[in-house]
């Protein structure tokens, strides 16, 4: 997984000089590419934070809550890793069938780069054509106040920094799944997760609340459990072993009935 993340981050193109600095350090701690889930799961984002969407309208993050929210933190002036992250998400979402975007969950991309503007956002969105047909349930936004950025990211353990040498931001390529009240419920990583992982993470973020019509999908979701080592969902073997073992009693009963009847028939013939 680490290599996927690294690739994702290093795919960044050299950015503009305005970021300044020229410190020749590039030994990156790989832990920066991950969110320390042990520490931050359950943490609440600042839902009151003021954001500005692509049309220039102000809104609050809380407006997008009330249902699970997939939160992506990226920056718009790059067309490297950030668009890889967003593109990957949009490609995965296109294959998500059990749950509907906008109805069951929202998606929100916010830039953590204080230099991003409506223009860079527009260019970025243009670049990311696939999100066009998502009827507004995927919002692209920037922070209204740049002082909000760092505390917002820190609250959910999202580390990022500008690497002058690599002339790019280093940051986790993370999809953060928030509950309807804005708590971090699950983190998946770009290029490491499939549509099913995303569906399951949305179920997780839904905290067991599901519509009756969803019961079959919900039941299927119980067959998987999140694997912290791999950063995705894996099948829950004990559940299958447990359910499978239910057949043992029925089988042994059937076998013994057949055996008994056969033996008794044998005796009657004698």
């Amino acid at each position, binding site marked *: 997984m680490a290599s996927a993340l690294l690739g994702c981050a290093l795919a960044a193109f050299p950015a503009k000089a305005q970021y300044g600095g020229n410190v020749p350090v590039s030994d990156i701690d790989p832990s920066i590419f991950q969110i320390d889930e*042990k520490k931050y*799961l*359950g*943490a*609440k984002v600042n839902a009151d934070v003021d954001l500005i969407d692509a049309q220039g309208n102000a809104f609050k993050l809380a407006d997008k809550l009330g249902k699970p929210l997939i939160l992506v933190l990226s920056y718009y002036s790059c067309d490297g890793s950030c668009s890889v992250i967003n593109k990957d998400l949009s490609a995965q979402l296109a294959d998500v069938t059990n749950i509907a975007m906008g109805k069951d969950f929202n998606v929100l991309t916010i830039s953590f780069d204080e230099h991003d503007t409506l223009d860079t956002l527009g260019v970025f969105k243009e670049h990311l054509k696939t999100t066009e047909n998502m009827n507004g349930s995927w919002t692209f936004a920037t922070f209204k106040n740049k002082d909000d950025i760092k505390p917002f990211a820190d609250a959910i353990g999202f580390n990022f920094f500008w690497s002058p040498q690599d002339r790019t931001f280093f940051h986790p390529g993370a999809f953060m799944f928030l509950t309807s009240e804005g*708590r971090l419920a699950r983190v998946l990583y770009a290029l490491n997760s499939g549509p099913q992982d995303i569906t399951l993470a949305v179920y997780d973020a839904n905290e067991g609340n599901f519509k009756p019509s969803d019961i079959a999908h919900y039941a299927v979701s119980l067959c998987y459990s*999140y694997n*912290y080592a791999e950063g995705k969902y894996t099948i829950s073997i004990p559940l299958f072993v447990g359910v499978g073992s239910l057949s043992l009693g029925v089988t042994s009963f059937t076998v013994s009935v057949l055996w008994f009847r056969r033996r008794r028939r044998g005796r009657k013939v004698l």
Partner: protein
Amino acid sequence: MRKLLSAMSGLVGTVLLSSQAFAAEGNGLAVPNQSWERLWHEVIMDITVIGVIMAILAVIMLIKYKASSPDQLGTAKKLTTVQSIAWALIPASVFMADDFFLAANGWTVWNDYRRVPENAMEIKVTGYQWYFEFTYEDGTTTSELVLPHNQPVVLRMTSEDVIHSFGLPGFRVKEDVMPGRITYIYLNPVEIRETFVQCAEFCGNDHSVMTNAVRVVPQAEFDAWLAEAANG
């Protein structure tokens, strides 16, 4: 009869009357531990009535129907089909009615326990073998849980090793603390006092001594304490 019943429920019932004395001071929000005591009284009343009625019936029958000679036979009539069905359905309906009554009340109190108000202060709890650690919103980590008076609090809890359980007998609540999972407890500390948390899920040798102090203090005192903890 009613007097007897309330006396009995009082006998089995609460001792911590003090929590009710402070109810008036609260912050207008539900206080789960007070709801707990109310529900406890209700349930104990309910089961005491059933228990006493059934016990009296049994004692009467055990005395009244003692055989006078070893050859005597019971004289109960065989139930007709209609009687059999009635004796199953009517009691079943009565039991179910009581079950649903209790379930509804239990559900209401459950909401008091689980509905966290918007302005609740977040404190992170981490369980280790064999202590709990508390992290406040400003990142300060402490070994003592200090809560500001009348400030709703939500504890977000996880464990670093095995399963523990965050038991607060003084707040009438506990919830397991598990590796890889997040659980929460909502507290509404409307009473200034000193109490404790104890581990309530078997976790090894020092399970019985896994405890931390819990204090509810006035807001000013809390602020001073937190500032000192942050520096210390």
